[in-house]
């Protein structure tokens, strides 16, 4: 099977980090928790560590098998195939969702009159090229490009220090813990739980011994950076503005003295979104190829990317519907796939070991 694809530990870490950064940093899913956004995020982050531990365990129990193969092994041929199809749909949906997010962001902040289909298609073209060149090329490109993402985040964080007002963190838990936990659950499913996609990529790691270390390190580093972004937005905008804005970072970045750095937010989205969509579509492609028993997924890249672009335009009528759906429906839709089935896989594996 896909044994010819090999990426290094560092590349895998960068892919996980870019994947987590993705659209999270721009959409700021914690915004609804107001002044307790940081707390909701930290709760979700801790939960995220548990999820990645779960995924790593599954990958270690089934070395060099992808999620689709693991499903077949665990649930038998037919049930396994059905669940695998569900996952393939989920990866495709995720890619379409991020594509649409990117298009909406560009439409709102920079290109007001450019048709969104055009923006999305241009982005998809780039991703199709990366997919055809394979995961190694994407990994190597991430090595070159991802450092810029970190640099931009750090620059903006420090430039905004004069705007920070620590009063924005209070009153602590004004409406109790319940809304915070609700938001934390949302953040757990987006972005942390979405790393279930990496179960399709873990077998490509050159030295499997590094798997645990690499994925935990990536979660730690990127989790910390997103925490910085959330605290930055909260401190500079205040809870009221934060909950009202569509793309909070675009406004907080506008406050940098004497500089116009908003485009950097779009660049960051481009970098993170690129990694995320590429990984999602790669997972979907490998899944399809493995279900069909093919050696190479590369022939299917272009039609699948076309389908993803179509889906991106089809899934949501407008921005409002999309925001509403991702906030209220998405967590319940994604959680079984992110937590339920992986947990089942692990349990079945344990029981089999005992028997």
């Amino acid at each position, binding site marked *: 099977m896909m044994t010819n694809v090999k990426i290094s530990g560092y590349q895998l870490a960068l892919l996980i980090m870019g994947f987590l950064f993705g659209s999270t940093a721009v959409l700021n899913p914690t915004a609804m928790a107001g002044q307790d956004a940081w707390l909701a995020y930290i709760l979700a982050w801790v939960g995220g560590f548990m999820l990645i531990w779960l995924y790593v365990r599954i990958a270690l129990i089934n070395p060099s098998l992808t999620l689709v193969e693991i499903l077949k092994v665990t649930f038998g041929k037919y049930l396994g195939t059905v669940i695998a199809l569900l996952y393939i749909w989920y990866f495709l*949906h995720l890619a379409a969702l991020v594509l649409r997010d990117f298009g909406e962001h560009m439409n709102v902040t920079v290109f007001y009159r450019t048709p969104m289909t055009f923006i999305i298609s241009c982005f998809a073209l780039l991703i199709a090229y990366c997919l055809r060149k394979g995961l190694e090329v994407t990994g190597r490109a991430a090595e070159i490009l991802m450092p810029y993402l970190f640099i931009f985040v750090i620059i903006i964080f420090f430039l905004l220090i004069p705007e920070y007002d620590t009063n924005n963190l209070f009153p602590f838990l004004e409406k109790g813990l319940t809304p915070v936990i609700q938001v934390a659950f949302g953040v757990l499913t987006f972005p942390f739980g979405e790393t279930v996609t990496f179960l399709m990529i873990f077998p490509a790691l050159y030295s499997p011994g590094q798997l645990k270390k690499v994925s935990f390190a990536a979660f730690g580093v990127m989790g910390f950076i997103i925490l910085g972004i959330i605290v930055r937005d909260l401190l500079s905008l205040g809870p009221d503005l934060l909950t009202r804005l569509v793309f909070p970072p675009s406004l907080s970045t506008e406050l940098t003295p004497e500089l116009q750095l908003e485009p950097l937010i779009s660049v960051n989205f481009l970098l993170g979104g690129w990694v995320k969509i590429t990984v999602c579509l790669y997972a979907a492609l490998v899944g*399809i190829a493995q279900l*069909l*028993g*093919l*050696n190479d997924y*590369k*022939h*299917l890249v*272009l*039609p*699948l990317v*076309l*389908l993803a*672009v*179509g*889906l991106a*335009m*089809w*899934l*949501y*009528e407008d921005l409002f519907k999309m925001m509403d*759906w991702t906030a*209220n*429906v998405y967590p*319940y*839709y994604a959680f079984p796939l992110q937590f339920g089935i992986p947990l089942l896989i692990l349990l079945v594996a344990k029981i089999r070991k005992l028997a």
Partner: protein
Amino acid sequence: MALNIILLVIIAIIMVLLDLPGLLKIEKKNKIKVLISYFLLLLTGFTLGLLLILEREPVSPTVIIERMLNLILGIGL
């Protein structure tokens, strides 16, 4: 609208032209499988694009997912 449809057709044709040399080179065993899945995917994408351009797209899957979740979980989403 007509222009959009023409563009979509051109994109599809370019895709097939780009992929065809590779598709023809596949070993006999998998050839049929790949060709069928390739054109099935392409057709789905193409139809979806066409329907979107004609503004006749069917109910979005997100709405279906929402309804299903409503049914199963019974939460007022």
